[in-house]
């Protein structure tokens, strides 16, 4: 594989950049694989990469119905953080933060990781207490957390509404300085390029139509491009998990919902942090192009539409304008929707299933993008070793049976609870 470096850049400049190698090849499916990953999004690509890199398993295919990184990997708001209170979430996410910090070097691909910090705003004394508790829990797990008072928040984000007569005054906030954003497409492309170079087949435009299961064991997968024999299958299909679960006669604690995001026209740098509104569900950051990237609540009903309705968008943006009134002056450039695999306790599932050789990675709710490296790493371990890693022990499928829910925010599909 051709290394991306300043020297290669100069060398290729002489030939007008016409002779670069393809970043990955367009593979056709073979008859048999050791492992097939279904879903060519961030998690699937990362899983294949770590299978090859950490476990030396390279007879691997990624099958993708559409195109690489075209689902939620291309639709998220690129926020990366590990500001969780529960140990299972905190340790998993902080392990991921380490992978994020090394990712550009590791993949030889600039993923533009920008640890600019995230601030969760608090709008009451009670919320400040809750944030103090969360911050302390984070620090016990070696995650950086800073509790800010009103004046400190004002210094960092003076454009927020600090006037006296607002409905939700800013009391302070909890900041994780090491959180940030990254270039989402670059993450997918970086993983794809490295996985491909180690021998993984990336097969696009290949839809899974069924599974070959006998004697409680997976034997193969039926696709729109032929049947493929396989020993192990990893499902990384986010919003399509319920559809594939039905083909496997499984019902899972996941509902498929619609989540919208939007960007404004690009403006000069104004906001150098990720900020979330504490009296509702709204988050904002500014992209490197200058667009204000925003998102919030689910549309609230089961959907596979990948496009949303205006009432939710209006509700979310009302919160945004309450928090930062200058947003009302900006024009909306684009809005879009993605389909989320909402688990019932709001935490993901990375586990084995009752079918031998079938592994499940789903339930990412609002937080799939930031988990990309940690999810890929732990899922690769789970598939390769046929047992869960300590980091994803808490993300078991059986926790809904046993009552060991991981209710970080106490809401999953039921947004109205918040």
């Amino acid at each position, binding site marked *: 594989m051709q290394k991306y470096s300043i020297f290669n850049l100069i060398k290729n400049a002489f030939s007008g950049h016409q002779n670069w190698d393809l970043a990955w090849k367009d593979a056709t499916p073979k008859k048999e694989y050791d492992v097939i990953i279904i879903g060519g999004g961030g998690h699937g690509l990362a899983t294949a990469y770590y299978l090859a890199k950490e476990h030396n398993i390279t007879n691997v295919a990624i099958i993708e119905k559409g195109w690489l990184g075209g689902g939620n990997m291309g639709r998220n708001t690129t926020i990366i953080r590990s500001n969780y209170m529960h140990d299972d979430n905190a340790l998993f996410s902080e392990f991921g933060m380490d992978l994020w910090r090394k990712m550009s070097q590791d993949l030889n691909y600039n993923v533009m990781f920008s640890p600019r910090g995230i601030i969760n705003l608090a709008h009451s004394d009670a919320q400040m207490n809750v944030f103090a508790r969360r911050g302390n829990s984070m620090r016990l797990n070696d995650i950086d957390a800073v509790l800010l008072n009103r004046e400190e928040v004002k210094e960092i984000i003076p454009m927020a509404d600090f006037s006296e007569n607002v409905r939700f005054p800013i009391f302070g906030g909890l900041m994780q300085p090491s959180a940030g954003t990254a270039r989402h497409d670059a993450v997918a492309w970086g993983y794809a390029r490295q996985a491909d170079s180690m021998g993984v087949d990336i097969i696009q435009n290949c839809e899974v139509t069924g599974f070959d299961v006998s004697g409680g064991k997976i034997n193969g997968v039926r696709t729109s491009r032929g049947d493929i024999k396989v020993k192990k299958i990893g499902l990384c299909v986010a919003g399509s998990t*319920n559809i594939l679960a039905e083909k496997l006669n499984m019902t*899972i604690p996941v509902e498929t919902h619609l989540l919208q995001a939007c960007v404004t026209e690009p403006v000069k740098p104004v906001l150098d942090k990720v900020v979330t509104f504490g009296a509702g569900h709204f988050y904002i950051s500014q992209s490197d192009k200058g667009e204000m990237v925003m998102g919030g609540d689910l549309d609230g*009903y089961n*959907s*596979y539409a990948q496009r949303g309705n205006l009432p939710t968008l209006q509700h979310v943006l009302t919160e945004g304008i309450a928090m930062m009134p200058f947003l009302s002056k900006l024009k909306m450039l684009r809005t879009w929707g993605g389909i989320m695999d909402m688990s019932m306790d709001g935490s993901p599932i990375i586990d084995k299933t009752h079918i031998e050789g079938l592994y499940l990675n789903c339930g990412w709710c609002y937080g799939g993008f930031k988990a990309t490296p940690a999810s890929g790493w732990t899922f690769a371990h789970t598939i390769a070793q046929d047992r869960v890693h300590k980091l994803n022990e808490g993300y078991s499928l059986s926790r809904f049976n046993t009552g060991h829910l991981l209710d970080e925010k106490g809401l999953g*599909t039921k947004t*109205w609870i918040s």
Partner: protein
Amino acid sequence: MLHIKCPHCGMRSQNEFSYGGDATIKRPELNKEISDQDWNNFVYNRKSLRGKHLELWQHLSGCRQWIKVERDTATHEIFKTLKANQDI
């Protein structure tokens, strides 16, 4: 914006309603021996169909009645609305 025809009040906009999820889920009968799996299926496990989906909505800012709606989860088309005690 979805337009939902409340069987009690007529056609209203989505803003007046709140969503209640899959309407085909049945609570296990009281005072009967049931397995953990039955209870798990009732509380957590969902099919979340792509296509026709029978679901509960509440006309929260209207008559406050719970209703059943048959809606396509891929196109958002609404085929039919029923009173909560009616079957399709």
